[in-house]
């Protein structure tokens, strides 16, 4: 096994020493005390190298690192690291170990002892349960624990059996990898189902937002240019020959025996390639096993980032927004019909992708074809292909596709996923709740009559048409769902409607309440309303994500946080268009992100639901641009309550 400590202490100085003897340099010493921290030694060594302005050549030449990481750095150009072929035996593979992320404990303030009949404060935990990943298992004292040991140990037995079963299952499903990030501790039961299908193409005649393509490079590995400044100005002055690759940083994980997690590197470009004199240009990148290394920004959004000027839309713009929001609603409605147990989220994404492209002419095929195809269990995608050929394209671009590198056309968030779930091979299970965040894709409500699991799905949809984006999402039930989940979903919906106007209750009582969204209302008020209602029902509001302005840009000013006492800037005026998308959780509000960089899950693994509408502020109140036109404007899940 590769021992960084050994290497850093003994080999590296020797390698470097021998190299530099040739150019008349002295051996590099290490800074300070390295006994306890060999990793810091590595850093320090690299730091010294850059500080002392020594040319770095043949920096590292090692044998195979754990998990398939092979790393050599030479004076050669890395052409395409995604392939195994690099010129002159430079090989960098994309597999490896991701950093361990210690999962956070549950967010309850006070815990009670688990022993029957004992409700004293619990400050101790069973160590075997921690090892097996069983949540909870809090006890007040050793004696109390011993007392309930006979029943408690059954939990361990069951967990071990379950583990064996899942492992056996994984062996059977050879194609699907449900644990792509080694060592990552999941907060709930949901797992990603990799590999994802490749990014779906969008026909050329459909108008694309600025982030859809990038002028430089391909998507699997890209380059970006940067002038190195800041803490390493020394590198600019270093007389490095062109095409040198410099390894500028390593990250290793101590807890797994110093396995290499990440390498950041720098490639010096010959100056004749660029017109500007004097500055050395360098291509720099980050090689991280298991994750992408590039970052496509939407440049138009970045340009406006930080400004709080809220655009007031002209009547033409407003019309365009109405159209795109209506289209988004249609896509959601169609997908709503697709959600059933057994359908994978990827299939739903495919349907959404096509639907966005096809448009409403598909509707004439929908109910019968989609419904029966989905119901019979056959892949709905085959029927969509027929429809696709038969119909005129609606010319919508699914907004999430390639937005900051998001790989799919919609976000499907199941159960404990708060938002931005990536559609994968996982089949929806009965009892899931699904939220579909649409960027042109719809996910439909789940099937009925399966009793074993309870989950909720969220489907979030955004589409881009004629230069504008429309955004909405809804949570659907898959099959039969637990009462608690139903209550969560209903409360979330009420939070959204109350933020718009006192919708739900007033409808039942047939009152006409003063609308909450109208000119003159501060954007920071909405958070107060949402949090108040959520807390009244014992739920929490996710803080990290917020509503946003939407028109020509997918996400722009204003920021609309959903929690109380926020500092949101802005007052509503006629012509403003924005979304409200409260995410409500059963347990704590703390969230964390999976190593894919997108999927946001609750820290305690409990369910989360979300609803979203795009709203236009009018002279007298507001217009819900993404409202449902059938069924009196009620959300899909209400039919299943």
């Amino acid at each position, binding site marked *: 096994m590769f021992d960084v400590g050994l290497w850093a202490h003994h080999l590296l100085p020797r390698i470097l020493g021998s190299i530099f003897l040739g150019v008349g340099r002295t051996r590099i010493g290490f800074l*300070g005390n390295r006994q306890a921290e060999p990793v*810091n030694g590595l*850093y*320090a060594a*690299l*730091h010294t190298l850059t500080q002392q302005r020594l040319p770095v050549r043949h920096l590292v030449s090692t044998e195979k690192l754990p998990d398939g990481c092979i790393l050599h750095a030479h004076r050669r150009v890395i052409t395409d690291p995604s392939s195994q072929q690099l010129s002159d035996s430079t090989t960098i593979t994309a597999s490896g170990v991701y950093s361990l992320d210690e999962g*956070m*404990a549950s*967010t309850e*303030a006070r815990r009670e002892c688990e022993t029957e009949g004992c409700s004293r404060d*619990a*400050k*101790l*935990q*069973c160590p*075997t349960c*921690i090892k097996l990943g069983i949540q909870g298992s809090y006890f007040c004292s*050793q004696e109390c*624990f*011993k007392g309930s040991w006979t029943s408690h*140990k059954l939990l361990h037995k069951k967990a071990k059996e379950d583990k064996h079963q899942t492992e056996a299952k994984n062996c059977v499903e050879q194609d699907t990898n449900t644990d792509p990030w080694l060592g990552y501790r999941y907060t709930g039961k949901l797992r990603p189902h990799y590999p994802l299908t490749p990014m779906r193409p969008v026909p050329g005649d459909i108008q694309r937002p600025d982030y859809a393509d990038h002028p430089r490079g391909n998507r699997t590995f890209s380059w*970006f240019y*940067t002038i190195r400044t800041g*803490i390493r100005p020394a590198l600019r002055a270093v007389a490095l020959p062109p095409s040198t690759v410099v390894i500028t*940083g390593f990250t290793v994980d101590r807890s797994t025996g110093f396995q290499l997690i990440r390498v*950041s590197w720098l490639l010096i470009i010959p100056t004749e390639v660029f017109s500007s004199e004097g500055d050395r240009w360098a291509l720099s990148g*980050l090689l991280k096993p298991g994750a992408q*290394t*590039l*970052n*496509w*920004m939407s440049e138009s*959004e*970045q340009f406006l*980032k930080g400004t*709080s000027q809220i655009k007031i839309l002209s009547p033409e713009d407003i019309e365009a927004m109405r159209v795109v929001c209506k289209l988004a609603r249609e896509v959601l409605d169609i997908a709503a019909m697709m959600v059933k147990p057994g359908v994978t989220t990827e299939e739903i994404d495919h349907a959404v992708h096509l639907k966005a492209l096809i448009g409403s002419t598909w509707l004439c095929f929908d109910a019968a074809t989609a419904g029966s195809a989905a119901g019979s269990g056959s892949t709905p995608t085959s029927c969509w292909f027929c429809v696709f050929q038969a119909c005129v394209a609606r010319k919508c671009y699914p907004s999430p596709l390639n*937005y*900051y*590198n998001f790989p799919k056309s919609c976000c499907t968030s199941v159960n404990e996923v708060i*938002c931005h779930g990536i559609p994968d091979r996982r089949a929806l299970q009965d009892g899931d709740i699904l939220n579909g965040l649409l960027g042109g894709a719809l996910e439909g409500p789940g099937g009925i009559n399966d009793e074993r699991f309870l989950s909720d799905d969220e489907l979030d949809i955004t589409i881009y048409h004629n230069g504008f984006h429309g955004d909405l999402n809804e949570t659907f039930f898959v099959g039969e769902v637990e009462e608690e989940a139903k209550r969560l979903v209903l409360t979330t919906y009420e939070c959204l409607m109350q933020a718009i106007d006192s919708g739900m209750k007033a409808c039942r009582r047939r009152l006409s309440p003063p609308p909450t969204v109208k000119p003159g209302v*501060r954007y920071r008020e909405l958070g107060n309303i949402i949090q108040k209602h959520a807390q009244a029902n014992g739920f929490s509001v996710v*803080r*990290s*994500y*917020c*509503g*946003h302005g939407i028109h020509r840009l*997918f*996400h722009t000013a204003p920021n609309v*946080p959903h*929690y*109380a*006492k*926020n*500092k949101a*800037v802005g*007052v509503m005026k006629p012509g403003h268009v924005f979304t409200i998308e409260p995410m409500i959780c059963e347990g704590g509000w703390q969230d964390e992100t999976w190593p894919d*960089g*997108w999927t946001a899950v609750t*820290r305690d693994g409990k369910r989360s639901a979300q609803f979203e509408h795009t709203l236009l502020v009018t002279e007298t109140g507001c217009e819900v641009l993404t409202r449902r036109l059938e069924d009196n404007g009620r959300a899909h899940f209400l039919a299943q309550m």
Partner: protein
Amino acid sequence: MEEEDDCPELVPIDSQSGPPARQIPVTIITGYLGAGKTTLLNYILTEQHNKRIAVILNEFGEGSALEKSLAVSQAGELYEEWLELRNGCLCCSVKDNGLKAIENLMEKKGKFDYILLETTGLADPGAVASMFWVDAELGSDVYLDGIVTVIDAKYGLQQLKEEKAEGLVNEASRQVALADITIINKTDLVEEEELNRVRDTVRSINGLVKILETQRSRVDLCDVLDLHSFDCQDGTKLTEKLQLVQPTRPHLDKSILTATFEVMGDLCEDALNTFIQDLLWEKKFCNKAGEPMSVIRLKGIVSFAGKAHQVMLQGVHELYELNETPQLWEENPHTNRLVFIGKNLDKNILQENFISTVVMGG
């Protein structure tokens, strides 16, 4: 392994949850090129060698950066860490990318004692401050401690007086306007008279700031760290400071200056919010020449009807916050004091408007 009959020893619960036990202060160090910011940083690092201090250079300017380097000083050594400005939804998340990256790093590698952020010479410290001045509800590990501006005694006056084209703001004076502490550095290079002029100019821009004079950026660290300028801990100190603030006369025609007034009585909360929004967001107030007032920094202590505690008002550009302080009014007269730092300010117009719309029964 069948250990079923062995009852293991219980372990204490791994309590990492709940509100952050300790929040880490972020100090923003800004100033013109060559003023002595880096010298100040190095001085702080060497003086505080028993603390774990993180230093970030050049803020988070480039949007397309994947990662950013961060230097950490611990026990006299300097080593490099990486902030992962990872991809993902940079859009609808409330916390800034850089802030999330810092929090992630602290989660993995342990908390720092201080975080110092040195901005580029022409940066707007207000924009950087708004990144770290997050709502308390977000439960962030990090809070904004204060803004320190370093000025070159020799060239500072020139930089502050530099005329900019219409509509553009003089970066140096904006940096002074937003400062909580101003360090006039390189005092050994100038005469007493010159130094007085610099001091007066700084005072004319920002009536609230504390001015320190140094050579080679050597300061007393407790004057620069742990300022708590943006939260309620500053309560009593703020009241004293506000009492001492005098409105300033501009040294230049279009420059930034400080306006302040005091009004007795209780205020209506909603009306105060509307007043501040009209001032900061809508820019409705104009001076006598008809130019809209633009406020860069806003501080105050106010009294609301029915609330026994003093309420602190803080604002940077368009962000503002009203927070109850632990101090009670008790028997003291309910004096509302407000300080505005910005351009085209007219104290009388503001005061009249304030009294007529915000003060109750006024």
